[in-house]
């Protein structure tokens, strides 16, 4: 039932947006095609403007991962995970989540393949994946697109939200699914 509602919404959301906004424009007597093109022009410049920021961030994250430095961080954080009641298998996912979206998705998929989606680990991986965002990617891309170089306290706020999301995920999964 819930699955049906959710898949229906995800199937219809984009077509409806693409329909309703132009319909509203036509009603307001806007030259819709011309206006569309005018807006779309900005797409190229915005995407190109992000390149230096994204190269900088992705290179650093990739070196950090490939060198094995991330594994050391994971090992160092192990006692913290055990203290909050999380199975240690999900720790790499917790560390990866704010850094790389595709990396985290890969780890979550792997956990579900190995332990099954209905195990505590599989469920926890799902909740963690569905909970917080790729903070570093979002900050890099959004601030980069307008040339902001000083992020101020946004990094601390974002990472605190990630840590909170992690602790809350572990808590609720232990409560509901253990």
């Amino acid at each position: 039932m819930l699955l049906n509602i959710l898949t229906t919404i995800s199937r219809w959301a984009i077509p409806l947006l693409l329909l309703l906004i132009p319909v509203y424009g036509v009603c307001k007597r806007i030259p819709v095609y011309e206006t569309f093109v005018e807006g779309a022009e900005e797409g190229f410049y915005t995407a190109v403007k992000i390149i230096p920021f994204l190269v900088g961030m992705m290179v650093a994250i990739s070196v950090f991962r490939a060198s094995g430095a991330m594994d050391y961080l994971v090992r160092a954080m192990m006692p913290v995970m055990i203290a909050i009641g999380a199975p240690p298998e999900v720790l790499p996912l917790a560390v990866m989540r704010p850094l790389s979206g595709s990396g985290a998705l890969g780890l979550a998929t792997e956990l579900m393949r190995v332990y099954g989606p209905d195990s505590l680990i599989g469920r926890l991986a799902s909740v963690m994946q569905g909970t917080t965002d790729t903070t570093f990617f979002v900050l890099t891309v959004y601030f980069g697109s307008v040339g902001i170089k000083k992020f101020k306290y946004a990094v601390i706020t974002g990472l605190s939200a990630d840590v909170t999301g992690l602790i809350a995920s572990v808590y609720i999964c232990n409560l509901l699914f253990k």
Partner: protein
Amino acid sequence: MLNLIWFFLLASGIVVAALNGHVEVVTEAALEAAKGAVKVCFDLIGIMALWLGIMKIAEKAGLIQSLARLLKPFLRRLFPSVPSDHPAMGAIILNLSANMLGLGNAATPFGMKAMQELQELNRDSPEASEAMCTFMALNTSCITLIPATIIGIRLAFSSANPTEIVGACIFATSCAMIIAVSLDYWFRTRSHWGRKN
């Protein structure tokens, strides 16, 4: 802060690789990532163009402003430095709604539009404004009502109940969002970072 994190990621990676005796992985990882980053941006061009085009129609038709007006009482408290009928507010609302619906590829262009509007209010300073920090706090901790990707993966591994995690996700993101918004408020009003200099 970001300078420190960036330097730490890069330097610790190189040092660890060197100590483990396989420093050459750094070269490959760095070059591949640099290429990959450009690919991500190029893939974004088309999606950005599509949604920014649609967004322009919404803007000219006055839809964005009406959205902003509708949620005015709520947004005014979160973004005291942004005039309440400003188009930035409309773009922020569209971004957050797209995030909630799990429409990641629509959320990014809306979010960038919001950042552009906020940057105009920020007089093109290279330093993030308070409103931008608040927007980022909301954006990175935003509730996803339909985590479509993860439900898809659970379905693919034949989970007995692929959507049972939705409630738990909403609980956990709500916690994250409360912390993010409160911390942002604290920074904005109490800390030395928040004061204009």
